[in-house]
């Protein structure tokens, strides 16, 4: 039986109840916004439920929306059910004051590096991760560079003048 967004959405709603905040479908992919405390439960349910089988974690990343007060940071999971060829996006919002979210490494081994990268870029803490430290940037870096308040260029560089580069 082919999966459609109605079936998937109704199963998620049945499982989560009020923890499913909203959903939308854009560019052919269903996206659900859920409470960040239920992320592991939801992904485990989607993994183990025999009619859904979302066993492939395609992508795990973060985003920063400084204008959305109360959920400035977002963790985005892209799941793929290979058996039914259906993709799904799950988003969990996190407020600036409390950036803890449960790690998915126990379920998907491939989440290891992806969570470290999200931590490195945004400072989102994945509780239960075996080795949460910086991965791409230098270990001594003391800020989280992908946050919108930090500039792209290295401010200590001396050989490039901003006015010639249009900045």
């Amino acid at each position, binding site marked *: 039986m082919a999966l459609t967004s109605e079936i998937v959405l109704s199963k998620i709603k049945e499982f989560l109840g009020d923890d499913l905040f909203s959903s939308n479908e854009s560019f052919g992919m269903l996206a659900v916004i859920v409470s960040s405390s239920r992320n592991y439960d939801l992904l485990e349910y989607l993994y183990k439920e025999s009619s859904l089988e979302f066993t492939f974690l395609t992508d795990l990343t973060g985003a920063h929306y400084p204008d959305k007060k109360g959920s400035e940071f977002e963790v985005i999971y892209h799941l793929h059910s290979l058996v039914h060829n259906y993709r799904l996006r799950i988003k969990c919002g996190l407020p600036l004051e409390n950036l803890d979210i449960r790690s998915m490494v126990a379920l998907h081994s491939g989440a290891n590096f992806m969570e470290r990268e999200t931590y490195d870029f945004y400072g989102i803490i994945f509780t239960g991760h075996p080795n949460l430290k910086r991965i791409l940037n*230098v270990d001594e870096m003391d800020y989280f560079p992908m946050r919108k308040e930090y500039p*792209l*260029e*290295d401010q200590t*560089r001396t*050989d*490039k003048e901003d006015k010639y*580069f249009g900045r």
Partner: protein
Amino acid sequence: MGELKTNIKIVGEPEGIKGEGFFATSLSKVIALARANSIWPLPFATSCCGIEFMATMASNYDLARFGSEKLSFSPRQADLLMVMGTIAKKMGPVVKQTYIQMAEPRWVIAVGACASSGGIFDTYSVLQGIDKVVPVDVYVPGCPPRPEQILDGFMKIQDIVKNESIRRRSLPEYKELLNQYGIE
């Protein structure tokens, strides 16, 4: 197959006095000639310029005909540090350590825009040119430079090797330059 070329240019002899069975020239010229035509590069290939270097090493452009048949991956046995590709700030200390391990005489060529000046990556994580950590002899611009450009840069290194003093390491300007980088 094509005709055999009979006007192949080979390395010419330096200036000197010729006679029946002998050739007298200065020692520095002979040493310079030997050094320039047997440079062992260390290919420090980090990104896309590394692939163009692989194309330069392959049979179409062939770096080996300039004397660099043996690529040395150990800095202790290399003469020329060819830095090809972007150097991130995490990699900067590695470049410096590799340079320090090289024995004199040693030269450095920065291949590509990223190694010369940071290239298109004007960001917080990229070193804006390797001359921030090691002294550089030749810069080859390009993104990535064509193999012919890399060979041109290599030939400029050969010119430097041929024409500079054979005890460059004891010149005061050179020592001053290394001090600026914090290398003894």
